């Protein structure tokens, strides 16, 4: 089994390397197949692990140093436990259909080999995070995920916006990683190890009792890392822009897996801290709430179908983070899992729509696609219903449990926020549903249904989106993850009051959407936007946060850089180096002025020199 785990990890890497150095593969159809095979390995092993109930941990010493009388081992390893098995299933079973979809979506792209190389590299990095046994390993793959995300967002590199988005994503994550790495270092100095199990053991044994504030600080710092990947406010700005990448990329990375990696990592990390972690939870839960609301409100005014889904993703990540803050890690993981499937599905549907409309992404140039693309329509509908939490579809279970968790933790206000956000979710999802699939077609090119290779994955995911929540909830998913429950929590059950309340709120959301955009009409929405134009502007401009960052980076940081350059050119080169140089040259010039060329003066110098020597001699002799 250990070998299987390693193969699972390394197969996508091999595929990536092979596809990078073998450019001739890209002409044939084999490039996607190689990549698909490497992901399918993951799907297969995840099932294998799940069925066999494997638990294992295998380590490889990456570097080792004599340290503090002992040794410090920096290790790379694979760890299979219930948490990572669940995550493996997500990666494998969302990843494989998306890879199939991508094969169809990217067909005809001249550098499809390059695409799949990067895509496989991403899967490798993601699996590294899933399998990680210690903080350094998770950090390593964390960075790799960031880099593959950069490469994939910037896949259409001739588009300036894509390059810009890629850069933004990478840098935002880097800033967040600043906190992450500091957190790791802090834990290292507290616990003396990077290994999750060792740290957890140390916490359980109470060895770190005196370090609780440091532990909390470390928790917050590590959470900052997660805020980067999981795009929590204020690090959320990169995610909507990341939609510049090809749609399968958005589906797999920026909806299903990569952004969820933050949540996964926090669960892994906080499990270590055990009871010691507590003070920071308010911070986390607030972050989640703010993100959820902020994103949901922005999503309401988006026109780009992928952007709507992107903000929706942000919002849902906010839910997960709220669950984390509440200490219900299993619930967060539950929502992560269900979200991965239905959001992956929604993105693939969007991709299918975009593909069908000849790479048109503006919803106001679509409409009436229900007839033209029936499979896509039905799949999208299932995904939407699952997302909005219509009873007994998967979103219903996971989201309600989060609200319940907030309730249990007495975050009364946040419970309201979460519920309201559910209504907003329904509003913007229904809006995009109506705009895309109903009414008359407003675009130019003739839309068409996507080929089988793209619709089959949709159907596959749709089934899971619908059923997974129930399977997880009734199949004992929370008990399966009981080892990862926060302190003082236990598996939750659907609370009828909460379920009914939120269902009603969701239905209201649908109703509002129907009243403005029903049958694909657009004018009512436009007039409303006109009437509340300040609010609309605020939302369209994403609360001006991006502009603020732009100013921060463009003016402040760049100004600072220019200042440093000025210092370099004027102070360092001009004064520190320039003055001694000029003084030397100047003194040389003055000295040679002594050589006046006049004989008498030369004799004068000579005799003067002798006189000085004699004076020196007398003075020295007198002492």
């Amino acid at each position, binding site marked *: 089994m250990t070998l299987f785990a390693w193969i699972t990890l390394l197969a996508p890497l091999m595929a990536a390397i092979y596809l990078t150095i073998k450019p001739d593969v890209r002409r044939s159809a084999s490039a996607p197949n190689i990549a698909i095979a490497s992901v399918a390995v993951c799907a297969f092993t995840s099932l294998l692990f799940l069925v066999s109930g494997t638990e294992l941990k295998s380590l490889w010493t990456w570097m080792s140093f004599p340290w503090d009388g002992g040794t410090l081992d920096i290790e790379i390893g694979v760890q299979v436990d219930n948490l990572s098995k669940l995550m493996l299933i997500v990666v494998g079973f969302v990843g494989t259909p998306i890879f199939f979809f991508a094969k169809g979506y990217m067909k005809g792209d001249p550098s499809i080999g390059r695409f799949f190389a990067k895509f496989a590299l991403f899967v490798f990095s993601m699996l590294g995070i899933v399998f990680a046994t210690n903080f350094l390993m998770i950090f390593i793959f964390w960075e790799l995920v960031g880099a593959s995300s950069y490469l994939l967002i910037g896949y259409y590199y001739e588009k300036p916006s894509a390059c810009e988005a890629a850069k933004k994503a990478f840098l935002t994550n880097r800033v967040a990683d600043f906190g992450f790495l500091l957190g790791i270092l802090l834990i290292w100095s507290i616990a003396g190890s990077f290994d999750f199990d060792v740290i957890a053991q140390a916490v359980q044994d109470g060895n770190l009792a005196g370090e609780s504030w440091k532990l909390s600080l470390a928790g917050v710092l590590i959470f900052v890392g997660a805020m980067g990947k999981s795009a929590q406010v204020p690090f959320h700005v990169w995610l909507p822009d990341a939609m510049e990448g090809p749609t399968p990329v958005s589906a797999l990375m920026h909806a299903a897996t990569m952004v969820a990696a933050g949540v996964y990592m926090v669960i892994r990390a906080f499990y270590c801290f055990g009871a010691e972690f507590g003070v920071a939870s308010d911070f986390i839960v607030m972050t989640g709430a703010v993100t959820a609301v902020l994103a949901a409100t922005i999503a309401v005014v988006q026109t780009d179908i992928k952007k709507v889904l992107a903000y929706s993703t942000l919002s849902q990540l906010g839910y997960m983070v709220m669950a984390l803050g509440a200490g219900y890690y299993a619930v967060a993981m539950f929502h992560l899992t269900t979200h991965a499937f239905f959001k992956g599905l929604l993105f693939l549907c969007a991709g299918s729509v975009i593909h069908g409309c000849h790479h048109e992404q503006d919803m106001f140039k679509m409409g009436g696609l229900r007839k033209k693309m029936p499979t896509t329509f039905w799949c999208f509908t299932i995904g939407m219903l699952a997302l909005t939490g219509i009873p007994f579809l998967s979103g219903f279970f996971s989201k309600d449990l989060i609200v319940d968790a907030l309730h249990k933790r007495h975050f009364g206000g946040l419970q309201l926020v979460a519920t309201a956000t559910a209504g907003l979710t329904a509003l913007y999802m229904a809006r995009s549903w109506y705009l895309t699939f109903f009414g008359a077609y407003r675009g130019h090119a003739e839309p068409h249904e996507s080929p089988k290779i793209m619709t089959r994955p949709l159907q596959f995911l749709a089934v899971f989106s619908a059923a997974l929540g129930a399977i997880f909830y009734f199949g004992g998913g929370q008990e399966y993850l009981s080892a990862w429950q926060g302190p003082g929590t236990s598996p939750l059950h659907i609370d009828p009051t909460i379920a009914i309340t939120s269902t009603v709120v969701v239905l209201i959301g649908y109703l509002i959407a129907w009243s403005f955009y029903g049958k694909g009409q657009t004018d009512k929405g436009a007039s409303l936007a006109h009437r509340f134009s300040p609010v609309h502007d605020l939302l369209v401009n994403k609360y001006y946060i991006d502009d603020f960052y732009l100013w921060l980076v463009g003016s402040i940081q760049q100004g600072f850089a220019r200042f440093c350059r000025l210092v370099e050119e004027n102070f360092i080169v001009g004064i520190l180096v320039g003055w001694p140089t000029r003084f030397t040259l100047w003194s040389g010039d003055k000295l*040679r002025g002594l050589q006046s060329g006049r004989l008498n003066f030369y004799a004068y110098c000579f005799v003067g*020199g*002798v006189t000085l*020597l004699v004076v020196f001699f007398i003075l020295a002799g007198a002492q």
Partner: protein
Amino acid sequence: MNEWNIGLAMPEWILAISALVALFLDARTPYHRKEGVGNAVWIGVIVATLWSIMQGFGLDGKEYAFRGRYGLDAFSVLFKVIFGITAMFVMAMSDTWLKRVDRGHGEFRLLTIFATMGMFFVASVEDFATLFVALELITVSFYCLTAFKRNDVRSIEAGIKYIVLGALASAFLLLGIAFIYGATGSLLLRDLASSGAADQIGHAGGALLQFGVLLTLVGLGFKIAAVPFQVWTPDVYEGAASPVTAFLSMGSKAAGFVLLLKVVRACLGPMADSGLAAASSWGALIALLAGLTILYGNLGAMWQGNLKRLLGYSSIGHAGYLLMGVMAFNHAGFTAILYYLMAYLFTVLGVFAVVVLVNGLTKSHRVDDYAGLGRTNPFLALVLTCGLLSLAGVPPLAGFFGKFLIFRAVIAKGTVVAYSLAAVGSLGVVVSMYYYLCVVKRIYMHEAPENGPMKTISGISRPMMAVLWICLIGIFVLGFFVQPFMSLAEQAASALLAG
């Protein structure tokens, strides 16, 4: 010690005889057929040098001639060989140079051999009378050589400056010798050595002696171009003919250092041995002069557009480094000086050989006119570059090891003065790197102007080619295969210290 032992001075005899033969031949031949004179001079110098080498092999301790006024030890043999080689190189250069001059071939060669004879004597000096006469023999020959281009006012100007200042220096030297004589009653260097320490015991002669030594050092300081007696150097270097400048920069300077070392050892050696306070103030004085000399030479050289003038300034700088070795005043210091001079021999003469050749083509000494040398004359460019870099002290070239030994000797003192001097010396190294590289830059990085005079030089005479090759190889050999030369220098330094 008191025997005449005339045979010991055979190299000088040979030189004298060949000079006389040359004089005779010169009087008998028309002005355009002076090959005979040349041959006589060549034979004289070669035989004398070989004879000195033979003497070196058979040498055992120190031998005296002329009743103790002439001595021969490892030190003098080493310098005789150095002077002999210098003279040969200079003669090779002057053969090339003289082709551009229509008159005075005979005189030029005669003056060269006279100066060489003076240098040979200098290496064996044991008393002040010999010292003075030998030195003046060199100096007066150089007066004539400097002003040799009598139709060139620059040459004449250089000559006048050299004569007046040289005579001034001679006067100080003579006065100094007189005071030393007054203090000790003897002209023999070894008497000075024996009385140097004794004179400190409250004797009135002590001050007189030290004053005399000071004035002697003034006279010698002029020869080696140490601050504050350096003013003549750039002008004379620039005005004199290139072979003469080469001879001045190597022969005359080395002769000055030979005498300086002998006087300093005779005078300060006993003082330093007995650990007297005066020794340290002499040390400080020399350190001060060394530092100033280094700074003056190197800083002044930065602005020079004329290569010979630049070399003049740099020659002042090198005098400063050599004085650092004097300041160290120990076996290591003397070894360093000797090694430095050996390295300097190949280095500076290699440079001047190229200068002579290039001047023949471009009729210019401007640094700018060396542009494109690297492309037109790769070999000359290589020799010149290696020479300049060796002057700058870059490994694996000869100058580097010399400088290293000098620094080593100074830092061995471990005093604040020594460290400060080393710091000044290192500043000088950096500055010198700058101006030497400025020349190298012209050679390799600038292109010769279209239709400019810079072309490939053909028809380099065989002796000249030999000079270039020997210098090039010498520069590398002395920079890397140090041991044999190092032991030569060490033996000579031991001989000097032994008295």
